[in-house]
């Protein structure tokens, strides 16, 4: 209630529990992501990091607890939240049949902005070759180039943004994330690597494991499939 007073956090979770395939992954997760701050979600493989991110973008609707975007509860806030969201998932949304330039144009970038962004992710000279011919790391960079476009949306939700990147790519991305935070952006990301960012909060999903590791999801079978 007090969260809605003057400037509510960009994203706030209250006692959030998520499940996947009838198994509770984590429960009682409280988190507030302020503008200008970043949250790094940690946890072992299969601990629910991706499920958490997909819940926050509204793609996975099976959760308990509350999610608030700028003080407005889900799912009512979803349409407006999505207009300020930049999400890069495991499958990065890079179409193999298009060139990097066309991919960025598909995300609404002008040609000049797209070229500048591709230059910053070290893909200068590849802008017109088909993504099919690029390596996994290069395709990852095409997706990440969206972060370098001018006036990127405020809220970034990134699933393993550092995966498949080389050392130079990692440091460039960290710089870009810092830039984004400096202009009032908010970032929520998962990573197994340490990330050097000021104003970074760590959340380990292992601290939010449900009481019994295989605790059944409440309500499953009672009414859902009845």
């Amino acid at each position, binding site marked *: 209630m007090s969260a809605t007073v003057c400037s509510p956090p960009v994203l706030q979770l209250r006692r959030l529990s998520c499940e996947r395939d009838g198994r509770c992954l984590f429960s009682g997760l409280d988190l507030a992501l302020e503008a200008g701050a970043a949250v790094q979600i940690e946890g072992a493989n299969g601990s629910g990091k991706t499920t958490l991110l997909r819940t926050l973008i509204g793609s996975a609707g099976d959760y308990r607890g509350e999610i608030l975007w700028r003080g407005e509860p889900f799912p009512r806030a979803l349409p407006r939240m999505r207009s300020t*969201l930049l999400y890069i998932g495991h*499958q990065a949304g890079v179409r193999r049949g298009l060139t990097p330039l066309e991919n960025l144009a598909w*995300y609404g970038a002008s040609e000049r902005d797209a070229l500048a962004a591709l230059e910053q992710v070290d893909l200068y000279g590849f802008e017109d070759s088909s993504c099919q011919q690029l390596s996994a790391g290069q395709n990852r960079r095409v997706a990440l180039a969206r972060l370098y476009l*001018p006036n990127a949306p405020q809220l970034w939700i990134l699933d393993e943004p550092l995966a498949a990147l080389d050392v130079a790519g990692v440091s460039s991305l960290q*710089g870009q994330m810092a830039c984004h935070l400096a202009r009032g952006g908010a970032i929520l990301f998962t990573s197994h690597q340490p990330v050097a960012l000021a104003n970074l909060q760590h959340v380990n999903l292992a601290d939010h494991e449900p009481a019994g590791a295989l605790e059944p999801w409440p309500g499953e079978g009672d009414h859902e499939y009845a």
Partner: protein
Amino acid sequence: MSTPEATRQAPRVDVARNLAARERGGPGFVALLRTELLLALRRRADIANPLLFFVTVLALLPLGVGPEPALLARLAPGMIWVMALLATLLSQESLFRSDFEDGSLEQLTLAPQPLYFAVLAKVAVHWLVTGLPLAMLSPLLGLMLNLPPGGYICLLLSLLLGTASLSLIGAVGAALTVALRRPGLLLALIVMPLYVPVLIFGTGAVQAALDGYAYSVQLAILAALLAGAAALAPLAAAGAIRISTDS
């Protein structure tokens, strides 16, 4: 402040314009249509497959049932329609698959713009590269199968209207089965019953034309089916895509 940041601050006009574009919500319908068309034209084999199937099977038909002109003329409208239907079905399985696998389908569900238009753009392009060429080829195949002269215009018109409905209806099945690794027969089982009315009125129109009756009623019904499908099928497909990506 670092140098890249400073350069990003410079083009103020662009900022305003891009912000406006973002308020309007992601890629517009025309941009979606253009991208889909570009992708389709780069996968020429995917375009050629249903057409080759269509032509090959109908070319084999006289070998199978014998070359008597009267028999072929009787079979022609029905066979052309059924083969057009199967060719459409064959090409439908891959409609959303690559987008699902590379994550761009999920990005579309996140766009502020309704998923309806994205689906409509994909289906429109699917029709342009399968249904339209199928319909255009049909008079030639009619000639091969000794279709009587009165049937050609009606065959072409009914296929133009009918294949568009088939593409739209098939998109619902493709969206429902996109998360399955091997949809195979399931897609056919979902979609076939919905294809039936289109097939009935399509062949009915051609048969009426051949018998010398007016066929405008059947064409009007096909057009009505198309209008209904255009309004409802993308909605259903969009819902199915949201279910398929939520897993």
